[in-house]
């Protein structure tokens, strides 16, 4: 961050005016008129750059969007016809049957409810907890800085394994409950480190100035650091939310017999497993054989899973796309 920014903040802070927390697009004093960006003459280099950039983006979009369109097309295609392959971005034999299968899934409402609940709760609590941890660990004078950080960094690379973890949860009476989705995975060293990096980028002078004025650590955390970290909070919130929304393995391991805690993803996974050609052999003598349901159900299930995230995303997008905040200082 530049000198310029520091001084502005320092002035604001030392003036004792703590009520107005620095905004996300820090550095501009909102009482001064926002300078209009001067239009500079575009050099040839600039133009070439712009053109190349646009070409690159178009190419990128085309390559990236194809699998989505393909999945969408398959999901609207009749299952038996889909087996023949050769479908690209337009369904060959239109059918809503795949979506019917997905929505006719038993336990759909329970699963949906539990999934939403765990996503919301897990994200809020997780974000809060990770933020505090990152905050603590980013304070320069913190006595246990190195040990606490190392303690958590190591956890990213070691794992007791599926069975010891299962036994632990059983002992703690977490299995067959809702809270097994929220409590165990709260803290992630990855989240901590990303947020710590960001918090360390915030000038110390802010903290020092505030503390000189008698602000406690919680005030620093809530009123100074957090508002500046909004993009990171949004990012981490997104990661946690997506992680919660997509997980099904924990449902299977810990709540297999508790149908009231089933999640949407797990129900979809069950639906897909009866279809999957990757699964292990059926008993050859059963006479059932690989009697697959239409494979396109997999595509429909994927679209159904993606849809809520895609709907949620625009609310968060302003944090990820620079230029959307400029000019709009506070919401």
């Amino acid at each position, binding site marked *: 961050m530049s000198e310029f920014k520091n001084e502005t903040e320092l002035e604001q802070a030392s003036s004792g005016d703590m009520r107005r927390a620095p905004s996300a697009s820090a550095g501009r004093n909102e009482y001064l008129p926002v300078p209009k960006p001067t239009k500079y003459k575009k050099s040839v280099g600039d133009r070439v750059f712009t053109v190349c950039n646009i070409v690159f983006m178009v190419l990128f979009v085309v390559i990236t969007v194809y699998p989505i369109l393909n999945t969408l097309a398959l999901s609207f295609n009749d299952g038996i016809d889909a087996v*023949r392959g050769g479908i690209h971005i337009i369904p060959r034999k239109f059918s809503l049957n795949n979506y*019917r299968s997905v929505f006719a899934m038993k336990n759909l409402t329970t699963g949906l409810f539990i999934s939403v609940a765990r996503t919301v709760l897990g994200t809020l609590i997780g974000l809060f907890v990770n933020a505090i941890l990152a905050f603590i660990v980013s304070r320069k004078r913190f006595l246990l800085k190195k040990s606490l950080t190392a303690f958590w960094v190591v956890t990213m690379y070691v794992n007791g394994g599926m*069975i010891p973890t299962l036994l632990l949860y059983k002992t703690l009476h977490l299995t067959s409950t809702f809270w097994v989705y929220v409590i165990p995975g709260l803290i992630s060293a990855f989240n901590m480190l990303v947020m710590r990096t960001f918090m360390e980028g915030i000038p110390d002078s802010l903290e020092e100035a505030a503390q000189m004025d008698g602000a406690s650590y919680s005030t620093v955390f809530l009123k100074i650091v957090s508002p500046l970290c909004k993009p990171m909070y949004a990012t981490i919130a997104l990661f946690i939310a997506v992680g919660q929304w997509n997980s099904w393995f924990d449902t*299977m391991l810990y709540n297999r017999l508790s149908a009231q805690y089933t999640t949407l993803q797990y129900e979809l996974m069950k639906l897909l497993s009866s279809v999957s050609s990757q699964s292990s052999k059926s008993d050859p003598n059963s006479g059932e054989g690989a009697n697959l349901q239409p494979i396109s159900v997999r595509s429909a299930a994927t679209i159904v899973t993606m849809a809520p995230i895609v709907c949620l995303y625009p609310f968060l997008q302003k944090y990820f796309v620079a230029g959307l905040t400029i000019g709009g200082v506070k919401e």
Partner: protein
Amino acid sequence: MRIKAKRLGACALAGTMMLTMLAGCGGSSNDDSSSNTGDSSSTSTSTSTATEAGSTASGDVKEFDMFIAMPGTEINDDNEIQQIIADKTGVKVKETWLTGQTDAEAVGTIIAGGDYPDFINGGDAMMQLYDNDVLVPWDDYLDKYPNLKAFYTDEEWDKFRMDDGHIYWMNVFGNTLGESKTTTHNDEAFWIQAKVLEWDNYPKIETLDEYFDLLERYYAEHPTMEDGTEIIPYTILCEDWRYFCLENAPEFLGGYPNDGSVIVDKENMKIVDYNTTDTAKMYFKKLNEEYNKGIVDPEFGTQTYDEYISKLSTGRVLGMCDQNWDFNFTITDVFKQSGLDQEGCSYIPLGLVAEKGMENRWHTYDDTLNMSSGVAITKDCDDIEAAFQFLDDLCSQEIRDLRFWGVEGVDYEVDENGLFYRTEEQRAKWSDPEYQASHECAYSYMPQYHGTSTDGKNANKPEEQTSEFFDTLPQPVIDVFNAYGATTYPELIGSVVEENGPWFPMYSYSNNMTTDTPGGVAWVKMGETKHEWLPKVVMASDFESTWSDYMDAYEACNPQDFLDEMQEELDRRAGN
């Protein structure tokens, strides 16, 4: 902040949803249906010793749960036929299936977690359950439940005895009641499209040479389909565990039955390794030849199962070697929908052999007793007697008809001769997945019979009912049957009709092997080596040198350890 408000809003929404949910659908898992009247009487006049299906004590329906280590679909909680069966027997079983794990992982997690379902079928991981003392021994209960006991003869029951002398599970498949009504060949074969046979006026194809010769001649005249897509004369699937399509043909070509992992030389009671016989070398050499001629699909080494099915379903592939259940159910549906079956694209099985005139044993006539897995009852079951009673009830004709044919008048009709049949509409409904979930309840991994019903006329399974069978065959296939003078697929293949030895099938032992024994380690290594080398051998430009490299790699796995262990098992099984 607007964002915080949104978050709070979401919280509030979740909260109100929670309240309405609890109000609305709380505790729907305990149905107490008190409608348990009913002795269902089942009059039996035929040879089986079926007695009355157990009458229910008045009171609640008992609910058990069952885990099956195979993929499958859960049925709805309010499934109609499940309820009917529950009314008659007093028991409902909630089945859960394998999801996203291998059977070994799933069973391992269940054991580690310590919460066992009442019934369990561990698939290939059955031994894990036994090793960990999870299962209830059957011996003391069998005599009390005659229907159940009658499922197998005493000798057959003995085959399920484990080292400690007790029986812990039973395999529910491959058991024929009364007269066999098998119409399909649900095993391995070399397949060829009906139209190719028709083109050459239905010749008798017996050897690999004749087979490939026919394919070559047809391909020379028809390099593409009518719409211009290229024809693939022969393809091979060798993805992951499905590579049996490539690797175990030598066993059958040598005229031996499906012991799966080895050949049993009956005369000398010796185990023979089919991977290294002369027949094996001849077979791969032939494939190599055909590959170099361009007859074999160049992509066979890398295609996935989905791609393979997709190729077959376009009707482009003239022939391959595969197990019926691996492809035919899906392909038949696709051909029916796209009309390709009327054009002769349906696949006909051929029982090829190494030399003309040899006997073939591609088709297994008698029942295959696969002792390696089956349905078992765990120690967590709180009412073992009721569980056994239910198994017993499931063996009765009436319940089985409900499971496989459905409800009379709704799912099937009875004609004036007492034969069951289905209308086109009923057939369509029966295969609709939603109808399956809401109405059908097959308890597919519970005891069941093929063959003839106790009424002496009908088949136990609709697909074996002669009328159902012929009505669903497309014309080109019927022409094939007529040309060769057969009325069923097994007749077409013409395998030797014989009973297999008491040791059959040996694959039930090799399926259960683990790396605890040197034989098990060798088995895994052999599998890995074959996966790597067999495609190379087929694609090689210099067959002899690649084959000898393959043999070197194969020998390095110590296959003798494996063969020795199988020999021990053979002696043990035969000696009994």
